[in-house]
């Protein structure tokens, strides 16, 4: 995406020392590895439900509670003595099917909810047989995800891809999927390459995925399998009409992250918001729950060819964008480590960063440029996701429009992969049709006028931009070292201790608190999950 024609032997345009990049990555690995082994030792209700979804269990009861929830809850209760979910749902569920308790998963879930089935943990040959049956059933879901990935590649080949980067990313958020669809199609016609359907606020805290097409959301539309399907089909139609593939984005975050990831893979979504620590810090979801769910969901994304978007922009909405610049870089490095460990490739890492420095600060633009260039040089192969100003957008829409123009200019100069279009009415209203049109004109003007400026632009060695980037990199390494040496009274991994004492975004999140903790189970030695088995195999 950008040239690596800096000084000989030095990566990128800033000419920073590659040994420091290496050091930062090594520290991220040191900090991340204990979290991965912690994640491997646990499962969650949502991982188990995602597994059932991959095996094809859909639908909900009369109260709207999905059958995957019903079934998982009954299995967990029946096996309470043996540790609940410690063995996973696969063995007890397919054992029950093999025993002829029901002909299929849906019937089994219904009967289980009615209390007419008792689950048990099969042993010996019976366990083996259940394992095989579960593997076949879940394998079908994985195969469907594989087929969807191939299908995406085929459609892109046939209709054509977005003609240039950055991809223009626009948001729709009406709450009603049938309103979202024409809006999304209109946004694509106006120039969007990526459509994100914002979720109903609060969905991240629901411990189930709603069912069916939904028309009642709050500041967004529920992520459901049917909504995914409807929107993807509509955008396929628009892709053919426009001669370029329109990508669809949603959010694999919150308590149902693994299930949403599975549904995204099954319905050929193209990008998913999926941050390693966002839920912990900003939604107060339990840290262990988050890391376990996150690893599984990233394995699915890796398999599905989905590009993840990480959420570093959020740090800057609560902390000062100059003081906290290094927390963004630190989080990017951790997100990269966790993503790669889960099998994602460089091209799938939409690492986030944002234009949030107070415009009243002297040299704010030079600092924005320095931060963005650091991200570019540090992650040369990743399609970085560039997020527009929000915090310093005011009711002065004219000034906001100028700020968005400078944001776009940084995007052009630093080869961003994904550019979320900034709206001048950010702090005022949900975007009007004219706001969106003006915003797209802003992007087009900057890209047309200065899209190739990066060919000529090289910051002066030892100049303000290089020095600022160096400073942020140094602070990043310092923070990672600090995290690596953090401890708590329970001997938790250093990153958990660091999260607990408020290292990120100033929010303190101890590992024994937060939402969704009761849905975490430590795996027994004979835990079995066919999805994990198939996804780990790579």
């Amino acid at each position: 995406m950008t040239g690596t024609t800096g000084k000989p032997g030095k990566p990128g345009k800033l000419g920073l020392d590659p040994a420091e990049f290496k050091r930062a990555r090594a520290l991220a690995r040191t900090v991340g590895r204990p979290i991965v082994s912690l994640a491997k030792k646990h499962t969650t209700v949502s991982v188990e439900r995602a597994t059932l979804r991959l095996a094809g269990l859909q639908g909900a009861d009369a109260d709207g509670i999905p059958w995957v929830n019903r079934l998982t809850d009954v299995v967990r209760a029946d096996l309470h003595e043996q540790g609940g979910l410690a063995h996973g749902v696969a063995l007890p569920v397919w054992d029950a099917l093999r025993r002829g308790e029901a002909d299929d998963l849906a019937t089994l879930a219904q009967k289980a909810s009615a209390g007419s089935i008792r689950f048990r943990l099969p042993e010996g040959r019976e366990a083996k047989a259940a394992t095989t049956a579960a593997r076949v059933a879940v394998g079908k879901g994985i195969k469907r995800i594989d087929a969807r990935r191939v299908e995406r590649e085929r459609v892109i080949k046939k209709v054509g891809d977005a003609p240039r980067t950055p991809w223009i990313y626009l948001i729709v958020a009406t709450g009603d999927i049938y309103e979202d669809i024409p809006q999304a199609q209109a946004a694509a016609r106006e120039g969007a390459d990526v459509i994100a359907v914002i979720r109903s606020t609060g969905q991240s805290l629901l411990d189930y995925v709603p069912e069916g097409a939904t028309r009642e959301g709050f500041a967004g539309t529920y992520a459901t399998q049917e909504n995914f399907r409807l929107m993807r089909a509509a955008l396929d139609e628009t892709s053919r009409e426009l001669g370029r593939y329109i990508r669809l984005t949603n959010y694999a975050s919150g308590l149902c992250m693994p299930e949403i990831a599975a549904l995204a893979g099954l319905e050929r979504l193209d990008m998913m918001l999926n941050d390693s620590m966002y839920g912990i810090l900003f939604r107060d979801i339990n840290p262990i729950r988050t890391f376990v769910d996150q690893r599984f969901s990233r394995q699915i994304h890796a398999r599905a060819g989905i590009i993840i978007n990480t959420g570093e922009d959020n740090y800057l909405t609560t902390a000062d964008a100059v003081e906290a610049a290094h927390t963004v870089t630190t989080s990017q490095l951790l997100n990269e480590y966790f993503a790669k460990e889960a099998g994602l490739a460089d091209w799938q890492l939409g690492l986030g960063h944002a234009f949030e420095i107070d415009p009243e600060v002297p040299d704010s633009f030079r600092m924005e440029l320095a931060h963005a260039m650091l991200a570019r040089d540090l992650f040369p192969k990743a399609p970085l996701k560039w997020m527009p100003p929000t915090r310093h957008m005011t009711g002065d829409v004219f000034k906001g429009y100028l700020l968005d123009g400078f944001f776009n200019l940084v995007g052009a100069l630093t080869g961003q992969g994904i550019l979320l279009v900034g709206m001048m009415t950010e702090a005022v209203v949900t975007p009007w049709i004219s706001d969106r049109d003006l915003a797209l004109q802003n992007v087009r003007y900057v890209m047309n006028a200065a899209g190739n400026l990066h060919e000529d632009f090289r910051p002066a060695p030892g100049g303000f931009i290089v020095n600022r980037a160096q400073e942020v990199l140094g602070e990043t390494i310092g923070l990672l070292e600090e995290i690596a040496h953090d401890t708590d009274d329970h001997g938790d991994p250093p990153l958990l201790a660091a999260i607990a004492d408020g290292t990120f975004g100033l929010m303190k999140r101890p590992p024994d608190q937060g939402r969704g903790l009761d849905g975490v189970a430590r795996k027994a030695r004979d835990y079995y999950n066919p999805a994990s088995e198939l996804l780990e195999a790579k």
Partner: protein
Amino acid sequence: MTDSQIVRPYGDTTGDGMVQVSFTLPLPHDKVAEGAAAQLANKMGIDPALVVHAKPIGAGYTFFVVYGRVNHLVDVSQVEIVERDYPLLTPKEANAAVKRSLRRRLVVVGGCIGTDAHTVGIDAILNIKGFAGEKGLEYYRELKVVNLGAQVSVPQLVQRAREEKADAVLVSQVVTQRDAHLLNTREMSAAFRESYPAGKRPLLVVGGPRFDETMAAELGVDRVFTRGTTPGEVASFIVHRITQRKAS
């Protein structure tokens, strides 16, 4: 201020009445659409109306920018605002007032209720870093600040307020889609009314960029703060009301 004081918008000459508006009409861009834009501007009191810019958005919409003279007069003496009815205190004065009157720290519990994840507002007021050159409430030695952060449910907020024996509860609401900020605030004030005996409930303060200051009574809260409010104003208000309540 009882004398009527008439003003008109100012372009470049006193009394010229010049304004600029922009809007979109659901019409394809043609002469009819431009005429329609001028007609709308006329009906808004803009006469003559100059349609200076018309741009098609997609096939069925056109965006307009209109300049022109409005014939309306503004009587400044008729403007209703919420006057500040409390003295502005420095942090030092606020601390001294609390010490003198309560002889303990004044407890403030704050957060963003409902699904609102935007902590910008509450943090600007509460975090020590503050806003607009003023330090946040955490800076005040005699204030105990409990910042619950984002997405706090109303029952959680009430519970924490009770646990902390809050004197004041501060709620920030940024998301306004479908009037979420109003619905959430009413739900919050109702919950406090239910949970506390009359006259015992903590001072309820809400703030956010889209609130209307005059709505406090309607929303069931003691005060509404809007865009541009500084931590010093909030601290002064809380200290003033709580110390007065104590004195009465």
